[in-house]
């Protein structure tokens, strides 16, 4: 695309803008606001509401500025009498069939129709006829969506966003002319992402939030800018409370890289904060196994005693990669400097080596690419995870950008995903064979083009046919992808958490990136991560081998596996978990239960009574997202400030307060700090955090060479018995980590654990969506309802890792790269 500039006049004022700019945007740049309804930046142009009509010199008719690009020397008028009269007329038309029921409308006070009528509208209505009514009572479309078609202004934003961005297309414009209604199939309940984008884009009160219904008026609300706590996309959102209750999360178009986009978790998962089940005071386990409330002073004393008693080598700590950077930074500082221990980690699910390799391969330590940079590349490759479910908003962004630009999207994943339908090619890989797949791709690349890269000779001995056999992707498909990559001007690669979980593919990916850098040159890499501040945790040095800013630690500590092993051997004196439910997440349930039961003193600080907390000696309450200040770093390396929307109820502390006071209690020289103080320290220590003005910066930390990547390249397909399923685990579209199960709203979307299989498997087993099946692991069996996922091959199953009591890790074994399960149709009751 050429990047020419165009100069034109708007209301006599000269402006120069990029070629292809819409008149609407050019006018905005010149300082003239043009009212709109149907226009929406990230949707296809429609030009139907006619609010934005302007006069253009030499043109007989008024023109829609929202779909008309600028032309050189054009002279546009946006404030003439004709234009003003037209705006007023369009509003009069829109009001003619509008019920004017503002007093009982949830949108009152933040309604675009209200606002525009106030600014541009007629002062008096002339319409005296019966209005078209689509229905009497509002109707419910989903646990989160309620609809009133009578208020609709037919801007089609809902229909377009659902199709073009969310990729569902479950809303349609039904009926013709004034009878047109944007709704679901026969107004039935929606089976969709429940992301609420239709609500967010609706300019009036036609699509509304069911949970927020009649709860508040905008002026009753106190709001704070935050970041969603549910995945690594790290969507910017504004949390709003009325009184002490958080009632809404919204995304502001002008604020945050995600513009208006949020997924169901982000938009509706806020109510975890209001949960009655929260831990509200420190609790000490009695001899009889029950918990008794104690004071914070006493709790900190106990913690201090136990840390000192255990000694540096026998103390360990694991934090959730969802805390703020300040908390994470302080945690490692406390552990290293006060407790003297490097036995720290920010995950329960993978090894320190695995994360080192991933960090090195994806260049997390060296800056990063924005999701937009990736999405706008000529060829976009998604591998190593189920992007649509793990990182829904990343999926939305990729979809609408690749949809609008028509660039090539390629997906390699063991499971089917919604984004498949936007891809030119989507291949299914055998689970835990990303490495073999990428190696095959490398073979195919060098077949076509000679590249002299250090380390390339290792792949000489490999055969593309064998690799194809291992990863299950046909040689033709591999060659097709390679050809696309070589003919691209830029390549974007999104690499997901499977690489971490299965410790598979990072080295090959690193080599692929090197090769592409030598051929295509413009290579943009984006890791997609399933924890909101995973990248921050690494940047902050919550890693047994890495200090803040990716500096090598003088002394390597134990990673989660080492810590569990030490505990299992009876050698762990004190384990401090913050926000991390290791019992529910560690990929070997039997082992972790046994190991935790042997820990001398187990302290769990968390917002809820987690599986781990139940096993703890001491439980501390924990403030969650929306209740703390600081910064978070998303998967792109974008550092965003968060503000608390409220103080938690009860005697709940933030991790930051807890750690500074504990540190100070043990060592008087450890200062009691606020998050701002800590951030200043981070700025000294971690490159890329120096320059944060306003609410965000986009750089991330950087340092070179955290790990040496030498691909071993010996591959074998993981073993699976006939009729067995490889089991994948991870976040669900409606659930993130272990927190979301406490959101009443999200629980309505998915209330219990499920097992997801492909259609072929379901047919083979003779089961339908919703039927209960028996899932059997090595020594654990559960009955779970089936969900069918289109595009997932037979032999692959998925269980979300988000449910207490039905934890996916009960099926997992540490000694296997990937565990298998048997699945059988369950006998129906009474049979």
């Amino acid at each position: 695309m050429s990047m020419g500039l165009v100069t034109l006049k708007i209301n006599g004022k000269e402006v120069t803008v990029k070629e292809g700019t819409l008149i609407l945007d050019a006018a905005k740049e010149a300082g003239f606001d043009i009212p709109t309804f149907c226009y929406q930046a990230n949707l296809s142009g429609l030009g139907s509401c006619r609010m934005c009509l302007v006069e253009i010199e030499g043109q007989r008719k008024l023109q829609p500025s929202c779909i008309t690009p600028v032309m050189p020397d054009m002279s546009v008028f946006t404030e003439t009498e004709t234009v003003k009269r037209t705006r007023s007329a369009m509003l009069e038309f829109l009001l003619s069939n509008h019920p004017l029921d503002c007093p009982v409308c949830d949108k009152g006070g933040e309604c675009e129709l209200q606002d525009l009528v106030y600014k541009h509208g007629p002062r008096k209505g002339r319409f005296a006829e019966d209005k078209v009514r689509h229905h009497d009572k509002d109707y419910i479309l989903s646990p989160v969506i309620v609809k009133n078609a009578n208020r609709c202004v037919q801007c089609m934003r809902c229909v377009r966003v659902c199709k073009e961005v969310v990729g569902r297309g479950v809303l349609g414009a039904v009926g013709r002319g004034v009878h047109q209604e944007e709704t679901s199939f026969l107004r039935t309940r929606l089976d969709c992402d429940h992301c609420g984008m239709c609500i967010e884009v609706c300019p009036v009160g036609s699509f509304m939030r069911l949970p927020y219904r009649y709860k508040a008026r905008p002026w009753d609300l106190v709001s704070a800018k935050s970041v969603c706590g549910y995945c690594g996309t790290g969507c910017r959102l504004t949390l709003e409370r009325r009184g002490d209750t958080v009632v809404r999360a919204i995304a502001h178009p002008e604020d945050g890289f995600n513009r208006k986009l949020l997924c169901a978790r982000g938009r509706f998962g806020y109510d975890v904060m209001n949960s009655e089940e929260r831990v509200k005071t420190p609790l000490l386990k009695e001899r009889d196994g029950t918990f008794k409330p104690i004071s914070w002073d006493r709790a900190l004393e106990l913690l201090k005693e136990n840390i000192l008693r255990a000694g540096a080598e026998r103390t360990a700590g694991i934090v959730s990669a969802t805390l703020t950077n300040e908390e994470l930074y302080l945690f490692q500082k406390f552990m290293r400097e006060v407790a003297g221990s490097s036995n720290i980690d920010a995950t329960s699910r993978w090894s320190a080596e695995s994360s080192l390799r991933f960090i090195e391969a994806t260049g997390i330590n060296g800056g990063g690419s924005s999701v937009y940079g990736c999405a706008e590349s000529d060829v976009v490759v998604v591998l190593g995870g189920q992007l649509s479910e793990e990182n829904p908003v990343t999926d939305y962004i990729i979809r609408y950008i690749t949809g609008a630009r028509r660039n090539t999207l390629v997906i390699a994943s063991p499971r089917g995903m919604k984004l498949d339908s936007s891809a030119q090619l989507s291949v299914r890989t055998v689970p835990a064979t990303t490495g073999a797949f990428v190696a095959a791709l490398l073979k195919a690349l060098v077949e076509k083009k000679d590249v002299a890269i250090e380390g390339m000779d290792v792949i000489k001995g490999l055969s593309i046919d064998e690799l194809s056999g291992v990863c299950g992707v046909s040689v033709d498909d591999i060659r097709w992808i390679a050809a696309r990559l070589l003919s691209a001007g830029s390549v974007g690669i999104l690499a997901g958490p499977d690489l971490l979980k299965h410790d598979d593919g990072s080295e090959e990916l690193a080599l692929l990136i090197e090769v592409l850098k030598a051929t295509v040159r413009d290579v943009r890499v984006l890791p997609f991560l399933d924890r909101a501040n995973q990248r921050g945790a690494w940047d902050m040095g919550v890693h047994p081998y890495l200090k803040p800013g990716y500096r090598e630690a003088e002394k390597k500590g134990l990673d989660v596996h080492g810590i569990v092993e030490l505990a299992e051997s009876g050698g762990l004196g004190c384990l401090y978990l913050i926000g991390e439910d290791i019992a529910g997440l560690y990929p070997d349930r039997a082992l972790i239960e046994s190991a935790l039961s042997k820990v001398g003193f187990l302290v769990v600080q968390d917002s809820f009574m987690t599986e781990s907390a139940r096993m703890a000696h001491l439980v501390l309450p924990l403030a969650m997202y929306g209740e703390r200040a600081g910064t978070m770093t998303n998967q792109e390396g974008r550092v965003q400030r968060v503000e608390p929307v409220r103080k938690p109820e009860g005697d709940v502390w933030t991790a930051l307060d807890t750690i500074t006071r504990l540190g100070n209690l043990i060592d008087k020289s450890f200062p009691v700090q606020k998050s701002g103080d800590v951030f200043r320290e981070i700025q000294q220590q971690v490159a890329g955090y120096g320059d944060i003005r306003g609410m965000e910066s986009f750089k991330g930390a950087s340092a070179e060479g955290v790990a040496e990547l030498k691909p071993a390249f010996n591959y074998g397909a993981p073993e699976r018995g006939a009729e067995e399923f490889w089991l994948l685990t991870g976040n669900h579209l409606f659930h993130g980590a272990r927190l979301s199960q406490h959101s009443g709203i999200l629980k309505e979307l998915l209330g219990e654990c499920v097992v997801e299989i492909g259609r072929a498997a379901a047919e083979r087993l003779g089961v339908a969506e919703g039927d209960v099946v028996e899932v059997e692991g090595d020594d654990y069996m559960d009955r779970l309802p089936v969900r069918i996922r289109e595009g997932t091959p037979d032999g692959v199953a998925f269980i979300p890792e988000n449910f207490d009591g039905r934890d996916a890790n009960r099926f997992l074994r540490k000694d296997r790269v990937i565990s298998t399960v048997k699945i059988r149709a369950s006998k129906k009751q009474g049979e």
Partner: protein
Amino acid sequence: MEKVLLKNFGKEGAHTIDSYLSGGGYEALKKVLGMEPEDIIQMVKDSGLRGRGGAGFPTGLKWSFIPKDAPEKYLCCNADEGEPGTFKDRGIMEYDPHLLIEGIAIASYAIGAQKAYIYIRGEFVFAARRLQEAIMEAYEKGFLGENILGTGFSLDVYVHRGFGAYICGEETALLESIEGYRGQPRKKPPFPALSGLYGKPTVINNVETLSCLPAIVNKGAEWFASIGPEKSPGPKIFGVSGHVKKPGLYELPMGTPLREIIYEHAGGIRDNRKLKAVIPGGVSAPLLTEEELDTPMDFDSLAKIGSMLGSGGVIVMDETTCMVKAAYIIMRFFSHESCGKCTPCREGTTWLKKIVQRIEYGKGRQGDVELLESLCGNIFGRTFCPLGDGAVMALRGVLKKFKEEFQYHIEHKRCMV
């Protein structure tokens, strides 16, 4: 004037390929297939043929916008014939389907299309069947399909049936409809000539337009250009309906005065009553009265007096006609057919209808005429496609000439007539 479009109208058996061939059918196609596409386009330009679908756009010029080197192009024949008062295309399709098919083949060859769709309104079941049969015959005889007449040119012609939506006569709505969507117009640009059906270069032409082509090829561009006025020449089918003695289709030279059409060809007003008003080109065209009857029926002459030739559907109303009722029927039509996409048309036509309806039902209010005029001003020129403009032109036409009848209705709660 020798008839070329309706020469077989009403003739038993005329629709078969044998009958068509015996009258020299498909000779034009044969001739054309030996010519350079550019030369055909030039010939059509020289003929002065302007689109018979309503807008009167020069056909040859439209074709010349099609990029020559595009690998995939389409021709769409607009057989939606939805404009009230229009029934000419149906006449051609029922009695002379091969004339149209030959025209389609000529046009497709000229623009380089390998696929053509005939978009026919759903109600025309009989005509669609006739077309389908004729297409099969043409395939059998090698006038369609692969390698036509050994020239290397291939063409497939398909019938796509609409299913009840006037708006699908609008060319981009027609494309949406073929693609399987609701028939709502697309934004322009890009124009169909660059990005039409399936995003490929596409020409959309009316049935009558395409049916003129064989005669142009056979008789020459000069012959065509010599008929009727210089700027809009050729034969034209006028469909006369309403209060005349002999309603029906009349193929006459473009520019034939309205008076001649009504009084000579259509036999004059029924029961020898007085003429009150006449709509010259489908209901979107503003109506004319007695003193305008000498206007030549061609694009420019009618535009000059503030009306339009449109589809050439002439609706005659005698002195017994209540103009408020006529206006109500027309407004009811537009509000029923408004596709719902843009605000002024969707809401505006419905509002207009409701006001005219209440006047018609004896519930009119003082100020209603002014309100109608004001709303017309707010709709006109602001809609997404010309449908909304059509509604306004029609209503303005009636208001302009019969305002007192509206006032009478409002005051006396009943008809003047």
